[in-house]
C-alpha cells in the first residue's frame, strides 16, 4: 500500500490561544515494499508526522493519501478502521501498553477488536510470537512476569497479529541491550525482505538508518529538510552536523581523517569493513 503526504500542515489546538504549528509543507511518498527512515531532533515534528500515516490525526492543511483513501482537512472521515488495520504503528516503549492477564490474550486483543474470530486470532498469535522469536510456552504467562526485552517483543507481536501492510516503528529498540537491539532490528528487516513489508522507521540511530533504509527523510523544524538514499544523505555530512544531528560513526571518522590526514575519500562509507578498505586505499595512494 502506498502512502503519500501532500503539502501537509498540522497545527495543535487550532483556533485557540494555544495554537502551535507542528509540521508544515511536508511532502513524502512511501512506496509499497520500501524501507524509509525518518530522522530528526526531538521536536522536529517526527511524531506528528507519524500519526498522519494511519489517520490518527487529520492534517489542518494538505492531504494524506493512504492506499485508496484520501484524508483531507475540513472533511469528516468515517470508517478509519481499515486504515488502522493496514498501517500499524508500534509506538515508543510499546510494552507500556500491555494490559491483559496473559500474553495470548494481549496479542489477540487487537485482531479480535477488529472482528477476527477468536480461533483465527489465536492462530495468528502463535505465528506472531514465532516471528518475534519467542517460544509458545509464554502464551499462558502474564506479560508482566516477562523481562523488558520479552515484553517489547510481545507488544510487537500484538501489532504483527493485525497483519498490517505497512509497519511504522517509533524508536523500536530504545532501552534494549545491544544484542536485543540487533535482534529486533534484524527481525524487522527480515519481515521487510521476505514478506515485502513496507517499513517506516523513526530513529535517532544513524547507523540503523544507514544500514536498513532505502530512503532517509530528514525532518527539521517541522518540515522535510532533505530526502535521499543513505548514500546521498551521508555524502554531505557537514550539512547534517550543522543541524546538530549525528552522522554514522564511520562517516564521522572519515571526516576526521580527511581533516587530519589531508586525504580525500571518494564516497561515504556506511560499514566498518568498507571504511577499513577505503582507509587502506587512500593511505597507500597518498604514499605513492
Amino acid at each position, binding site marked *: 500500500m502506498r502512502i503519500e503526504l501532500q503539502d501537509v500542515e498540522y497545527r495543535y489546538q487550532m483556533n485557540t490561544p494555544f495554537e502551535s504549528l507542528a509540521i508544515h509543507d511536508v511532502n513524502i511518498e512511501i512506496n509499497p515494499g520500501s524501507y524509509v527512515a525518518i530522522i530528526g531532533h526531538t521536536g522536529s515534528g517526527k511524531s506528528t508526522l507519524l500519526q498522519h500515516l494511519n489517520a490518527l490525526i487529520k492534517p489542518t492543511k494538505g492531504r494524506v493519501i493512504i492506499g485508496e483513501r484520501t484524508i483531507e482537512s475540513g472533511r469528516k472521515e468515517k470508517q478509519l478502521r481499515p486504515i488502522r488495520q493496514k498501517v500499524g504503528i508500534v509506538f515508543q516503549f510499546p510494552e507500556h501498553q500491555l494490559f491483559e492477564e496473559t500474553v495470548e490474550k494481549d496479542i489477540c486483543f487487537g485482531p479480535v477488536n477488529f472482528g477476527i474470530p477468536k480461533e483465527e486470532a489465536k492462530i495468528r498469535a502463535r505465528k506472531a510470537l514465532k516471528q518475534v522469536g519467542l517460544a509458545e510456552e509464554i502464551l499462558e504467562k502474564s506479560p508482566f512476569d516477562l523481562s523488558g*526485552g520479552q515484553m517489547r517483543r510481545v507488544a510487537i507481536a500484538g501489532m504483527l497479529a493485525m497483519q498490517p501492510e505497512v509497519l511504522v516503528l517509533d524508536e523500536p529498540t530504545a*532501552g534494549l541491550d545491544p*544484542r536485543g537491539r540487533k535482534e529486533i532490528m534484524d527481525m524487522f528487516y527480515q519481515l521487510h525482505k521476505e514478506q515485502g513489508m513496507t517499513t517506516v522507521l523513526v530513529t535517532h540511530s544513524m547507523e540503523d538508518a544507514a544500514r536498513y533504509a532505502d530512503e532517509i527523510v530528514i525532518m527539521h523544524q517541522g518540515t522535510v529538510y532533505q530526502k535521499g538514499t543513505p548514500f546521498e544523505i551521508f555524502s554531505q555530512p557537514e550539512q547534517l552536523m550543522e543541524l546538530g544531528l549525528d552522522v554514522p560513526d564511520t562517516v564521522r571518522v572519515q571526516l576526521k581523517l580527511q581533516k587530519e*590526514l589531508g586525504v580525500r575519500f571518494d564516497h561515504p562509507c556506511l560499514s*566498518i569493513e568498507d571504511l577499513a578498505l577505503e582507509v587502506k586505499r587512500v593511505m597507500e595512494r597518498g604514499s605513492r
Partner: protein
Amino acid sequence: MGEKLVSLNDVTFKYEGQDRNAVDCVSFDVYKGEWLAIVGHNGSGKSTLAKLLNGLQFAESGSITINDIELSEATVWDARKKVGMVFQNPDNQFVGTTVQDDVAFGLENLGVQHQMMVERVQNALNKVQMDQFLNQEPHHLSGGQKQRVAIAGVLALQPDIIILDEATSMLDPRGREEVLHTVRELKDENILTVISITHDLEEAAKADRIIVMNQGLLYRQGTPDEIFQLEGELVELGLDIPFSVKLGKALREQGLNLADSHLTEEELVKDLCELNSRM
C-alpha cells in the same frame, strides 16, 4: 586506587518465584572519586545490584558496606543519604509540580530548614545548569532536562555516590550527551563517585573501571582497555564493543600496522596519522 567507599562481599539475591539468583555471590569494591560502569545484558543482574546498593532490596546473604555502614534495615536510612539514584524513565521520577519543588522534595523529607533548603536547591540546579528553569513545569522540559533535574534532586541531598540506572537510555543523543556531560563535571570536581549501569558501550569506554555482569555473576572487572580486549567474548554475552575498537580491528585485518586497541576515535585517528606519515 584510593579509599574504598563501597564494598560488596559475596552478595546473593533472588526474586520471589524465580529459580535463578538475580545476583549470585558478587564481590567488588568501589573507590572514592572513580567512575565505575556496570555493563551486562538485560536480566544480567545490573539493576538488581543498584537496588541492593540503595537498600531498595536486601541481600539474602553476604554484606554491603557503604562508608563503613553495613547496610541493613536498621541502617538503610543513613546509607541512603550517601547514595543517590537516578532511574531510567525521566517521567517516573518527577514528583514536584515545578523544577524547584521537585529538587526540594528530598530535602523536605529530611526536614532541612527552609533557608538552607533554598540555598541547596539553587546550588544543585546551578550545578546541572537548570537554574533558569526554577518554576517550569515538568512537561515543558525535554527528557535530558528532566534527568538533569533528577540529578539535582540527588545532589541537593549531598550524597557521596550517584548511581545512574540506565539513566540515559530513554533519551535522544543530545539529551544523553547533556546528562553525561553534567555527571562528568560533578565527578571531575570531586563532588561525586559515579556508578553507571549502562548499555552504552561508548559511555563505558570512558569510565575508569568496568564491571561486566552475566547471568547474575560478576564476569570480569578491569579498566576499559582490559575489558574491551575481550572483544568476541563480550559479543557472546550480548554486549557490544566500542566503534573505535571494531574499526581498529578491521584496519588491522586490512594489514595496517596499528597498536592493539583504541578506546576513543581520537586515539585511533592519531595513530593513523602517525602511521600515514611513516608510509
